[in-house]
């Protein structure tokens, strides 16, 4: 096992974690401010990816494609919030789960109807293709490195927004006391739509970025959604910091588990058995991590309360 390979895999884990953060941040904000569990968040991820693939095919510009993913997901988010989600804030979690599950069905089949069942492809532009040389002679994918940097920049921007801006203050106020901000004269309805649109845009952006690595297809959002849930359970609900730490933990655990576990079992087993046992265990690693957190800190690493 070479150190270079290990570093490369660590970077991959970081890249995966940063993407999960974009999903989890929106989910945790929406839960924190509006008390809503949104299963359709994965659909917004998908909307972003499809919008990017469509615009890229049409204009050939990757930057326009990314912009389109943000706009399309945010617009979809606003529409969904105003038509459906708004009616769910006062409902119990069961109704929220069911209604947003219904939204998944509508989004997925609608997209299949519009784009067909075949996956689309979103190509990385030339200026992001190939590899870069990092210090110590590590050769790494330029695009993945860009994702890490962009993701970290978005994370930093989000932290800054929540800590320093007026909208951030309102979001924090909303998390602490929902009635209070109404009493302070903040237009709650508009704040909620805005937060939902922000979460949607982050999800759509993540979908577009990942769409260039994997294929763009119906159903791509839900596995990521469930991983984002694992992130939130680990990090603690409503906490952006928790979402960030949780996302990086999950990204690293998953990627390094897939890389290291088969190697580790290779020390005590024959290669083919080691590969299959290692791969099976690796597929469960993040859930085992989640179970461990539940055992010792049911409210999550940064969760203040058991919601």
């Amino acid at each position: 096992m070479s150190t270079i390979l290990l570093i490369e895999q660590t970077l991959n884990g970081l890249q995966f974690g940063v993407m999960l953060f974009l999903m989890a941040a929106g989910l945790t904000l929406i839960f924190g401010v509006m008390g809503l569990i949104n299963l359709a968040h994965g659909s917004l991820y998908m909307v972003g990816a499809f919008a990017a693939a469509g615009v890229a095919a049409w204009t050939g510009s990757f930057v326009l494609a990314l912009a389109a993913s943000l706009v399309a997901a945010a617009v979809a988010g606003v529409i969904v919030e105003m038509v459906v989600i708004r009616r769910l804030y006062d409902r119990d979690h069961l109704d929220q789960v069911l209604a947003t599950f219904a939204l998944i069905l509508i989004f997925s089949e609608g997209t299949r109807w519009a784009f067909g069942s075949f996956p689309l492809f979103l190509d990385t532009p030339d200026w992001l293709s190939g590899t870069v040389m990092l210090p110590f002679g590590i050769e790494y994918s330029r695009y993945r490195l860009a994702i890490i940097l962009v993701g970290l920049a978005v994370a930093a921007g989000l932290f800054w927004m929540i800590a320093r801006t007026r909208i951030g203050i309102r979001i924090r106020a909303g998390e602490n006391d929902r009635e209070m901000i109404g009493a302070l004269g903040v237009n709650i309805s508009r704040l909620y739509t805005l937060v939902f649109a922000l979460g949607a845009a982050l999800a759509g952006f993540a979908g577009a970025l990942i769409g260039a690595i994997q294929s763009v297809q119906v159903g791509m959002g839900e596995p990521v959604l469930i991983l984002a849930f694992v992130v939130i359970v680990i990090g603690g609900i409503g906490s952006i910091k928790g979402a960030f730490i949780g996302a990086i933990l999950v990204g690293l655990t998953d990627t390094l588990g897939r890389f290291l576990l088969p190697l580790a079992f290779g020390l005590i087993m024959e290669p083919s058995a080691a590969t299959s046992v290692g791969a099976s265990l690796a597929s469960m690693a993040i859930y085992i991590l989640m179970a461990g957190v539940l055992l010792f800190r049911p409210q999550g690493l940064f969760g203040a309360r058991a919601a």
Partner: protein
Amino acid sequence: MRRETLLNAAVLALLLAVPLWAQATDEPFTITLATRAVILAIAGVGLNVALGLGGLVSLGHALFFGVGGYAMGILAFHAQSYTTLIDWPVTIEGTKSMPVIWLVAVLASALAALGVGALSLRTTGVYFIMITLAFAQMFYFFAISWPAYGGEDGMSIYVRNGFPGLNTMDPIQFFAVCFGLLLLVLLIVWRLSRSPLGLMLGAARQSEARVQALGQVPYRLYLTAFVISGAITGLAGALFADLNRFVSPTMFSWQTSGEIMVFVILGGVGRVFGPVAGAALFIVLEHSLGGLSEFWHIYLGAILLGVVLFARGGLYGLLAGRERAHD
């Protein structure tokens, strides 16, 4: 008689009449559809123990459905390939006997529910939803990556398992087996809902503080309900696998979890017979809408959305009125 009782009788009668009529007119496919409805109804009745009685929004019941399915698949696979399941410390062989398979499916899924429940029930509310969903996904990925039993492709069982004295390959006889089990499960859940445990569980759902002040530990009540719930859904999984003579990781998927929940909601949460009506309605919708458009899930989604936003209480809420506080 109360309207709800009448409705219960009507649902069961309809579920029985359709396959009998199909048998008379030689429409085996319709019998299979009815069998599917019956099996999915059992899964829904199982979930309803957690959801309706205990108020536990489990979005991971596909886990138990899948465990039941794989219990059947693994036992039958070893029986049909004449291999042993394990050799050490005792030799365990596969089997093609339905009763044995059901027992294993029920025990295995109960055990899974005990483990998953013990962890998930440390939390409540939205955490519980996310965690149950995540654990089901863990089993899904495990089933995909574990090559011994078909991995991603799943595995086929060539001949349906046997039940003493019956020819289970005959659709109507297999239907009868499943229908009998549905009746049994309904009886158990109906008695459970009126038992001391059912009363206390419902009280925990409404007020945990009350139940604690009565000396009861909500966690234990919930866990008991969760295990019973998982075991019943596991039984449905074994039957479902037998119906299709095929198991695959799809049984563990989040869509399956969602659909089981949809049966409960379409019928009416907390009504013992609700999921039966819901599963039957689901099959009817799937069949009629599926004939209309290949994208029938859009309509299903719209209907579900309508039920959640405007007709809480589902079919039973519409037809039988508000649930009566029974005595």
